[in-house]
């Protein structure tokens, strides 16, 4: 640099401090950086730890719901009791209620226990009824009504065991607790153990948990999520069909066409605020507007879908506007420059480029709506809604139904601990749906982005 250093032919003499030895200030800076990185790693570690704890808790508690205890017994379908007239007329046979079937099943179990030579102090068919689910009779009756010719024969049935027996096999019901339990005695548990060794009582995968309907408080073993899954799907259909077109149209107008003035500023601020409004507020709005004012049916997925649409719209509008704004303005000028109209430039060029962002936002909005419970509380979609599968599409929208998260909440609230397990199981199904939606969002994003 200086004449002096140029003059020396070899390496110039060092001036000031050496580069090899870091000075105190540099050391402090580096230490601060190392500490900060450590905080970050610790934060991420904590996050992962809680995630693992959460997922394993859900799995451990919920997996049981997918298995159910069944008792395999041959039931003699006595014509004298089930079809007194003897002409196998289904209409006539419908008059025999489940009360007519219960004794047959109890007798069958008693006979089976004796045939197997199991030693038990329970000396009558009636004494064994605590082992059988209250819904077993309905189970048998459905089979008989579907095929009246079975009457008079002996048919092997997989009868649902009562929730206490099921709980005993899953470790939920302890022998020590049974003394205070009116629903089951130690003798029943002894018999269960004996029958399990014989292979008559066994746990199986329970498809009915995924496909079935909710059951009453005392029949936890029968309850399933299927009908409320349908309820959720009908709601999501409403949300998708309403919020995507409305949201995208609103965003395109605000972002591309609207003049920037005080009025659009106010709209913009309000949309951002709406995204932060507690969902229960949308629930009471839905109650007031859709049910009390417009007289739409209570507890209907249509109303639920409308409420969730209101809730999802801000999310979709915000993400759509963000992805429209991220399309480079040069694309718009290019389109206008070759004589495209404003609308052509938006629909031919801007919208396709914004599509991955719009779709991701929409699916994430839907996923949020799928998991939302609070607004459903207020429009009557939570509670024991004794529904069966809806009868066609119209009734799917209009008949009372629940939704997945509402059903889970309802189960968690019930007194019987057997429902606790089902609540965790429901969470697993809900998470699977959410995961599938997120994967779809990622795939759509990749697909659209890969085009160029």
């Amino acid at each position: 640099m200086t004449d002096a250093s140029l003059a020396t032919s070899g390496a110039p003499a060092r001036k000031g401090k050496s580069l090899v030895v870091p000075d105190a200030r540099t050391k402090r800076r580096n230490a601060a950086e190392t500490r900060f990185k450590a905080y970050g790693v610790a934060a991420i570690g904590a996050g992962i730890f809680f995630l693992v704890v959460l997922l394993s808790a859900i799995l451990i508690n919920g997996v049981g719901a997918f298995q159910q205890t069944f008792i395999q017994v041959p039931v003699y379908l006595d014509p004298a009791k089930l079809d007194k007239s003897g002409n196998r007329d289904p209409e006539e046979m419908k008059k025999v209620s489940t009360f007519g079937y219960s004794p047959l099943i109890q007798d069958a179990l008693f006979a089976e226990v004796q045939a197997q030579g199991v030693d038990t102090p329970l000396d009558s068919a009636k004494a064994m009824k605590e082992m059988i689910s209250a819904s077993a009779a309905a189970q048998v009756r459905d089979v008989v009504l579907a095929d009246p010719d079975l009457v008079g024969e002996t048919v092997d049935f997989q009868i649902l065991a009562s929730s206490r027996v099921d709980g005993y096999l899953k470790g939920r019901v302890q022998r020590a607790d049974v003394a205070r339990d009116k629903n089951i005695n130690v003798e029943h548990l002894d018999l269960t153990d004996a029958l399990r060794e014989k292979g008559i009582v066994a746990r199986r995968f329970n498809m009915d948990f995924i496909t079935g309907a909710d059951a009453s408080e005392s029949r936890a073993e029968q309850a399933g999520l299927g009908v409320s899954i349908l309820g959720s799907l009908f709601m999501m259909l409403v949300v998708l069909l309403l919020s995507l077109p409305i949201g995208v149209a609103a965003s395109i107008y605000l972002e591309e066409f609207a003049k920037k003035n005080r009025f659009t500023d106010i709209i913009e601020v309000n949309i951002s605020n709406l995204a932060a409004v507690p969902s229960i507020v949308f629930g009471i709005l839905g109650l007031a507007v859709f049910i009390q004012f417009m007289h739409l049916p209570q507890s209907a997925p249509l109303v639920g879908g409308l409420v969730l649409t209101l809730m999802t719209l801000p999310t979709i509008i915000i993400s759509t506007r963000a992805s429209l704004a991220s399309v480079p303005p040069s694309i718009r000028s290019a389109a206008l420059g070759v004589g495209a109209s404003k609308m052509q430039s938006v629909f031919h060029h801007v919208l396709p480029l914004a599509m991955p962002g719009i779709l991701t936002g929409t699916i994430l909005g839907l996923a949020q709506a799928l998991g939302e419970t609070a607004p459903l509380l207020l429009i009557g979609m939570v509670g024991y809604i004794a529904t069966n599968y809806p009868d066609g599409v119209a009734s799917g929208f209009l008949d009372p139904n629940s939704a997945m998260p509402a059903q889970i909440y309802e189960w968690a609230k019930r007194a019987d601990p057997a429902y606790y397990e089902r609540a965790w199981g429901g969470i697993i199904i809900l998470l699977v749906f959410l995961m599938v939606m997120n994967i779809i969002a990622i795939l759509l994003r990749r697909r659209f982005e890969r085009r160029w």
Partner: protein
Amino acid sequence: MYDAPNSERDVEVKDIKITAQGVQVYYGDTHAIKDVSVDIEDKTVTAFIGPSGCGKSTFLRCLNRMNDTIDIARVEGNILLDGEDIYDKRVDPVQLRAKVGMVFQKPNPFPKSIYDNVAYGPRIHGMAKNKADLDEIVERALKRGAIWNEVKDRLHAPGTGLSGGQQQRLCIARAVATEPEVLLMDEPCSALDPIATAQVEELIDELRRDYSVVIVTHSMQQAARVSQKTAFFHLGNLVEFGVTDKIFTNPTDPRTEAYITGRIG
């Protein structure tokens, strides 16, 4: 190579394509263009030069009403294209822009294939009756954009995969595909390297045979190389307008002289 011989710079009087009379442009409270009047000839390259922020791009964008897309911009005065006021209420800017094409500072091909880039304009204006027609239009435009030989084998490759210079020539091809009468170019070479610049400049010289070309440029050398007429803008005023040779060799206004000798701007 760059400097065309003087004999080519014919200064004969040609038809007037665009007449601007007393044009004022305001961006909100800013008075960006102050009373500019200029006549742009047909089949001529007219260059707008001047320091940054002097309003040359703004004025260029008035000529095809691209300023309409800016909410706060306001244009006063008359701009006549073939004697018709383009700011007349009855004029649809979309039709105007088909007649007055534009090439932008940064190459901005659509993220579509090379073919679709060029075919887009003709498609939306319904210029082709069938696929064969459209193919022909695309080929003609790409040839006129002097890029046909480089892309003819990969017309369906993405336009964004081309080099910067190729992209800009693709954009020129896209602009001429709609058969405009005037071609506006807003610093078309500012994002290009010298070789690509030379190619585009050569192309501009060829385009002069069919179009009236208006080019905004930062580079005085470029203006001297490609244009026949030059307009010098300064602080929103049109300071001097005339034959390029005269502006560069014997400017009338002291400000023009200061700019071309490098004392301002």
